């Protein structure tokens, strides 16, 4: 029996009839065409699929679309304020070379943005611990951590570290 799922995705209301076994990540990618949310492992390990549900970061491969019914979902596509400007976290990833192939990046950024909602001034150790659920095969994490610390500074209104 199909279930009706209505959510707010990146500020827009959407409604679909889906099979109950539809994952949130499938709903976003296949029903809505929002392919910025990636599927790396599909086994709850890698964090490539991280989105925000009612402001909290979750793995969209480990949640049913039906479980997200009635919530507000934010994906990487909805993070920047407008098509011209990047979110400070996105800008910091670009400036600090925080990505190589870019596959893990949407999940890294969504997870890191959630960290800064809890802790506006994290230490390097706190950034590394928070990103426990996000795996990157390319960068060795160093520049990712630098980017998150840089973004935290920018968002607190401090001058940019890179340049």
């Amino acid at each position, binding site marked *: 029996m199909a279930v009706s799922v209505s959510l707010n995705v990146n500020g827009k209301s959407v409604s679909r009839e889906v099979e*109950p076994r539809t994952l949130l990540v499938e709903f976003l990618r296949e029903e809505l065409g929002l392919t910025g949310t990636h599927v790396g492992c599909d086994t*709850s*390990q890698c964090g490539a699929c991280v989105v925000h549900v009612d402001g909290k970061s*979750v*793995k969209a491969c*480990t949640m049913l679309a039906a479980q997200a019914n009635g919530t507000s979902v934010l994906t990487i596509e909805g993070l920047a304020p407008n098509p011209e400007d990047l979110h400070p976290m996105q800008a910091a990833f670009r400036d600090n070379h925080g990505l190589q192939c870019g596959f893990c990046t949407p999940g890294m950024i969504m997870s890191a943005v959630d960290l800064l909602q809890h802790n506006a001034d994290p230490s390097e150790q706190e950034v590394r611990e928070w990103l*426990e*659920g996000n795996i990157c095969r390319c960068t060795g994490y160093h520049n990712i951590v630098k980017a998150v610390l840089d973004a935290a500074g920018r968002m607190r209104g401090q001058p940019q570290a890179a340049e």
Partner: protein
Amino acid sequence: MYAFDYHKPSSVEEAASLLASKEDATVVAGGQTLIPTLKHRLAQPTDLVDLSGVAELKGVKMDGDTLVIGAMTTHAEVAADATVRSAIPALADLADGIGDAQVRNCGTIGGSVSNNDPAADYPAALLALGATVVTTNRSISADDFFTGMFDTALEPGEIVTEIRLPKPARAAYAKFPNPASRYAIVGVMVAESGGQIRVAVTGAGQDGVFRATDIEQALSGAFSAEAAKAVKVSPETMSADIHASADYRAHLVSVMASRAVAACS
């Protein structure tokens, strides 16, 4: 995943009657264990009953000297809760060390204890603290609740509603985590309540969580890290896998117990 029907009741009563009336219904809490299980087709329920709409299952309160945590309270909520932090700080720290931030935002205490993964953290806390698991039918002491690997005293259709944890005089949890998943390779909770010392071990036992009675005895003599570390734990009943041999796990039990004791004082 096999197909199933999905229900989202708004009360415990409604959830229990759905479980009773459907052919093979199962509850979903945070889904952090159940959804991976369904993806692997290791389970084939006809119906999923989502407890996330049941408000009465959420939240933390004190009942006299007992900390009461609703089954649907997430790990992140337990970790950040001021009442938990002041009553049993070791429990807040334990919740903060489960998996990763996204798992903690979804996974629940009720789901973790019902699942009784042999490497899960909460079972060790419940056993060491002498907690009580309250269900739709009855109250079960932690000693009777955890009956073996992935096995509990829960009957089909029975829902865990809350966990009651008496505030200890002191307690601490020390975990040697698997570096990838953060599940415990060995995790030890040490608690002292009313002059009695209880030591519970997760991650190590072939039958899941257990009490290390020889370490409890040693600590009753002298409550010191050295006393815990001096106990030679037998590898006979320890599990072994690619992460750690039975000998290594046995060794880690005393080491983690001694770290937990050190963190108690």
